[in-house]
């Protein structure tokens, strides 16, 4: 494993964001929902009830939740292979998510997309993408479209540190800057491109790559949902007011393997590193701690909330398991509109 700035436990001290207790509670709930969703996905995989693989978002919840809460429902997002968190945070429902992951008819894509391709136009989700960097163009084009249509929609493009290797990202950042497009590039730096540490693949300073194109860039602690939300809110405001794109670098971590089958990880990352992030940098624990400390909520309430979400997730997975597969005749439908 290569050198990297050691992350600090806990939360950085900063001005408390404008207080809206309901908002923080909602974010807590959403992060828990994503966490429990992903644990259920892992379980479906381990019990051989899910076809294929999935890339879990556990550990990174604060990024999707912080960013998506700064968006309107009619704003757009594009997502990645590690996309469940983005979809849920933007408003997808648990049952249709599970159904899609199981290849069932009520799934968001009628089972045609699966884990890596969930799209839902009702919540502005233009789709997860299994090509690394593959949605950079789509997101920037959606932003261009909004501008041309005179709509004030903003588009968020989520991608991982690995996508910094894809040239198309620089091509579209250039155009986004030239034309002041309302797009926010959210880079989730979870330290790894699959099984390779990002410092082995990524030269220079990451935000400099956006700044070089005249794009406003910020680095934010991706485990601090309030911090992410605050930066995202500012970026959204800028975008909505025609001030152009922003690049948000979010430092974060994935708790599980690259995908559900990646169990033996010690050859590329230390158990201690995983433990540190799980115990000291967990976004859910950190928010819970703050909520209790600020007396916005208390442990009992939060625990109850978690139990409620757990029940919801269980019901959703039951729904999906019981749901029918699409009829085989659907196989050649939807090739052309």
């Amino acid at each position, binding site marked *: 494993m290569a050198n990297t700035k050691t992350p600090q436990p806990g939360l950085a001290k900063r001005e408390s964001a404008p207080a809206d207790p309901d908002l923080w509670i909602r974010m807590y709930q959403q992060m828990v929902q994503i966490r429990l969703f992903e644990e259920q996905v892992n379980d479906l995989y381990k019990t051989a009830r899910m076809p294929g693989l999935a890339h879990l978002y556990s550990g990174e919840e604060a990024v999707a939740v912080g960013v998506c809460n700064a968006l309107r429902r009619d704003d757009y997002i594009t997502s990645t292979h590690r996309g469940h968190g983005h979809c849920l945070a933007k408003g997808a429902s648990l049952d249709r998510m599970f159904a899609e992951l199981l290849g069932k008819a009520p799934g968001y*894509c*009628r089972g*045609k997309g699966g884990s890596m*391709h969930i799209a839902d136009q009702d919540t502005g989700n*233009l789709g997860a993408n299994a090509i690394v960097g593959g949605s950079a163009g789509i997101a920037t084009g959606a932003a261009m*479209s909004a501008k041309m249509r005179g709509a004030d929609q903003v588009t968020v493009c989520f991608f991982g540190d690995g996508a910094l290797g894809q040239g198309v990202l620089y*091509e579209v950042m250039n155009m986004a800057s030239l034309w002041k497009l309302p797009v926010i590039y959210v880079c989730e730096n979870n330290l790894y491109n699959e099984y390779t540490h990002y410092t082995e693949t990524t030269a220079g300073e990451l935000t400099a790559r956006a700044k070089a194109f005249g794009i406003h860039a910020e680095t934010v602690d991706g485990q601090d949902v309030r911090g992410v939300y605050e930066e995202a809110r500012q970026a959204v405001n800028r975008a909505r007011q025609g001030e152009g794109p922003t690049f948000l670098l979010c430092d974060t971590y994935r708790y599980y393997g690259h995908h559900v089958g990646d169990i033996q990880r010690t050859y590329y990352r230390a158990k201690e590193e995983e433990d540190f992030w799980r115990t000291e940098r967990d976004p859910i624990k950190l928010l819970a701690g703050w909520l209790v400390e600020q007396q916005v909520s208390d442990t009992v309430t939060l625990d109850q909330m978690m139990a409620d979400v757990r029940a919801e997730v269980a019901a959703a997975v039951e729904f999906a398991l019981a749901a029918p597969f699409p009829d085989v005749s659907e196989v050649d439908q939807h090739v*052309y509109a």
Partner: protein
Amino acid sequence: MSTPSATLSQTDAHAVREITLAQAVREALAEEMRRDPTVFIIGEDVAEAGTPFKVLSGLVEEFGPTRIIDSPISEPGITGLGVGAAMTGMRPVIDIMFGDFIGLIMDQLANQAAKVHYMSGGKLNVPMVVRTTLGATRRSAAQHSQSLHAWVSHIPGLQVVLPSTPYDAKGLYKTAIRDNNPVIVFEDKMMYQLKGSVPEGEYTIPFGVAGIKRQGTDITIVATSSMVQVALTAAENLEQIGISAEVVDPRTMFPLDKATLIESAKKTSRAIVVDEGYERYGVTAELAAVIAEGAFYYLDAPVKRMGAMDVPVPFSPVLEDQTVPTPAALTELAKTLCGRA
């Protein structure tokens, strides 16, 4: 596919003029931009320059730089932008200056544009047109002379259009722009100055309907794009010696009008397929295979193929001229096939 149910030609009472293929393309784009404010064009040097071939000259004056957009030299980027814009309410036309550059955008076309509708279970659409070129003999060498339409023709989700006359160019472009799926149009660089009759105003040509460019009874020549003129010249040569050749232009590689190709071959019992792409694993293979299977019991001779020679296009004129099918070579092949060589 929501191809308009239009008849082949809805010319109504419109005046018909002789205009060039370049003018026909421009007219189609201008008309569609007038009727639909969501149509825009983006590409390198498309605005004031009107593209190097001047096909788009004048459009920026009418529609302004917010709808005729000069882009950086970023083919993957502008194609990606096009996909996103198309998914969210616009109808982009992506201008890729030379067909040789589609290697840069194959991921955007095949993995994004072609699959969005299907992967989303039919919820999202990509009504995007890519316009680009094909054709050799401009002495432009190996990276500016290719006809790579076979690549996109291979991919489910894409539609591929090869207009061979000004009339077809206008009618097919209008259909392309109104279609809700990605369409790639290849224009032959050498045909931009070709003139033909084109009605003023509204008409569309549906996809998947071949054009019989010449009726005949002894042999079928299936020809695409630039090769239609070659086939027509060969057909005239053949007529001199009493061979009646039918020239069929599929117009769209996909959807492909298999029925018309097969019917023609059944009628004549002989077929040659000619196209300017590389021969190996090119579109001639598909067209020949379709005919050989569909007209099997009617054929008196094997279906023959003529594509570009399987070499990178050489610069030197003496070499380049060897690489493309010519009327003379096509005439000879047809004569042989008809037992007249």
